[in-house]
């Protein structure tokens, strides 16, 4: 048997769902830029990060199990 490279379907689907979630992704990237020069260490982008991943999860959720045995 040839060496088949195993690709994780979840990562694959998350990549394909990225275009659907561009808006929260851009919000997150804007936040990253905003806090780049922060010295206090108190600023973080958890909110935008959660919004983005919640969008991706909602997109991936119904489709993932169809790819698995």
């Amino acid at each position, binding site marked *: 048997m040839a060496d088949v490279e195993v*690709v994780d379907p979840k990562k694959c689907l998350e990549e394909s769902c990225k275009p659907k979630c561009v808006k929260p992704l851009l919000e997150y990237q804007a936040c990253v830029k905003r806090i780049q020069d922060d010295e206090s260490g108190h600023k973080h982008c*958890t909110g935008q990060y959660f919004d983005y991943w919640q969008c991706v999860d909602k997109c991936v959720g119904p489709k993932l199990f169809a790819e698995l045995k």
Partner: protein
Amino acid sequence: MVGGGVIQQILRRKLHSQSAATPVLSWFASKKVHEDAAASSSGVRALALLGAGVTGLLSFSTVASADEAEHGLACPDYPWPHDGILSSYDHASIRRGHQVYQQVCASCHSMSLISYRDLVGVAYTEEEAKAMAAEIEVVDGPNDEGEMFTRPGKLSDRLPQPYANESAARFANGGAYPPDLSLITKARHNGQNYVFALLTGYRDPPAGISIREGLHYNPYFPGGAIAMPKMLNDEAVEYEDGVPATEAQMGKDVVSFLSWAAEPEMEERKLMGFKWIFLLSLALLQAAYYRRLKWSVLKSRKLVLDVVN
């Protein structure tokens, strides 16, 4: 807290300026008019209570939104094959999931409520389960000489525990206790989806968040910093049935196994539920018919008023 005080002041000013803006406000205004001198304090008290209540509500909402990391990212709902009203477990998945548990998780997590005999007929044949049990050493005794001895495992033995007690487990894992997994999908809110999301959700932390040495970032874990490292990596396990062992596949299989472990009665429960709901519906129809039959005598009465002047 400061914001709450400011809001209270704004409310007071608004109430003073708009006397009849809403029914509530007009009630307050009329109250002030009716009860003057001595009793005006009760009107002020009511106003203060309203202000305090609104402040409490508003400050609660602001605090809750700032602590989203504390609750963890909400996990999505996955379409588990055993979700339907008459759906059984995917037993092939349970078998693979047990293999994942044994090879990946059992080094740290106990499942002390499951015995080898519970696996018979669910994931393994009796011979396979016996052979698996025989691979472990169990302390038994005392024997006739009063000594404890070790023997190979039997079907009636529980799955082996990696640590002797919780303290040993904490000591070996930097103070964190790897919980027993026998009931984990019932012991966590939205357990099945949560465990799957957690196991497959290890990601880089967001900008501005740093996790200390020894912990790992997982957005689904309340607080975000979990002691367990990412354990499911592609092809960490080689499945007997040849299914490709991707991270997501292993996650699905191990959660199916854990769901079965927490709710082994699920299939029988669903069958019983379907049967009895059906029978009771028939019984309901019968009871309704019988009630109306018996009451028809009264319901079809004719009452005559015979008034004599």
